């Protein structure tokens, strides 16, 4: 109960992360998805960068790591906030109480995972 209250009190933080995630999703993701998720798999472009040995080198760069960290975690908080608020509209009272815990907790958990993965590369 106490934890749930604390999570609710952090609403300005969740909203700010949501906003930052919205910026990342709007400005950065379209180009990345288009190249990495569509153009490369379809063979439209074949940059030399996308093989194991070059990628390991590039992702090893701390600046790239920081970029990837925010590119992953901020969109997660963005989605967590929106999905939580949308599900609240179903008006299932017991669920509404734990939605912030599930979604912000989930995003925070994945943030830790991202951090560990990036540090280990």
């Amino acid at each position, binding site marked *: 109960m106490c934890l749930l209250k604390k999570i609710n009190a952090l609403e300005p933080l969740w909203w700010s992360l949501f906003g930052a995630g919205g910026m990342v*999703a709007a400005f*950065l*993701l*379209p180009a990345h*998805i288009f*190249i990495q*998720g569509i153009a490369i*798999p379809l063979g439209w472009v074949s*940059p030399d960068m996308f093989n194991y040995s070059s990628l*390991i080198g590039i992702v090893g760069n701390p600046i790239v790591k920081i970029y990837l960290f925010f590119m992953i975690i901020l969109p997660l908080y963005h989605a967590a906030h929106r999905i939580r608020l949308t599900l609240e509209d179903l008006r299932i009272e017991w669920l509404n109480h734990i939605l912030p815990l599930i979604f912000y907790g989930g995003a925070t958990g994945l943030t830790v995972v991202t951090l560990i993965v990036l540090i280990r590369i």
Partner: protein
Amino acid sequence: MAHSMNSISGKTEATKTYRRDIPNTWWLKKGSYFLFILREISSVFVALYAIFLLIQLCALSGGQERYESTAAVFKSGWMIILHVVIWVFVMYNMVTWFRISGRIFGAKPLSPVLVTISNYIIWLIVSIGIIFLLLKG
């Protein structure tokens, strides 16, 4: 709160008022509500892409063999189709985001349209930058 269609709730002593309940399908009733829900749903695809990136990084940290088998999965036909769907939703998310940020930051002396247009210009420059780095970097 009463949840039946025609329920009476005696609010003040003098008059019995009624409240019309909103069905959970309210967002189907109006175009603007539907577009709103579509925007909210687009965030699911935003998260999905972030998780895909994380999976790819995981694979990368797991060595060459694991990376290559994961990369093969992301080259499969249904994965490409899924990425096209993700891309469409992310583009929609972007359009709504720029429209809203125009509204928030477009107060005098700036106008909302000006803010939205400058967002698109920045987006274009950033996107070209990203594509350049990915292809030539």
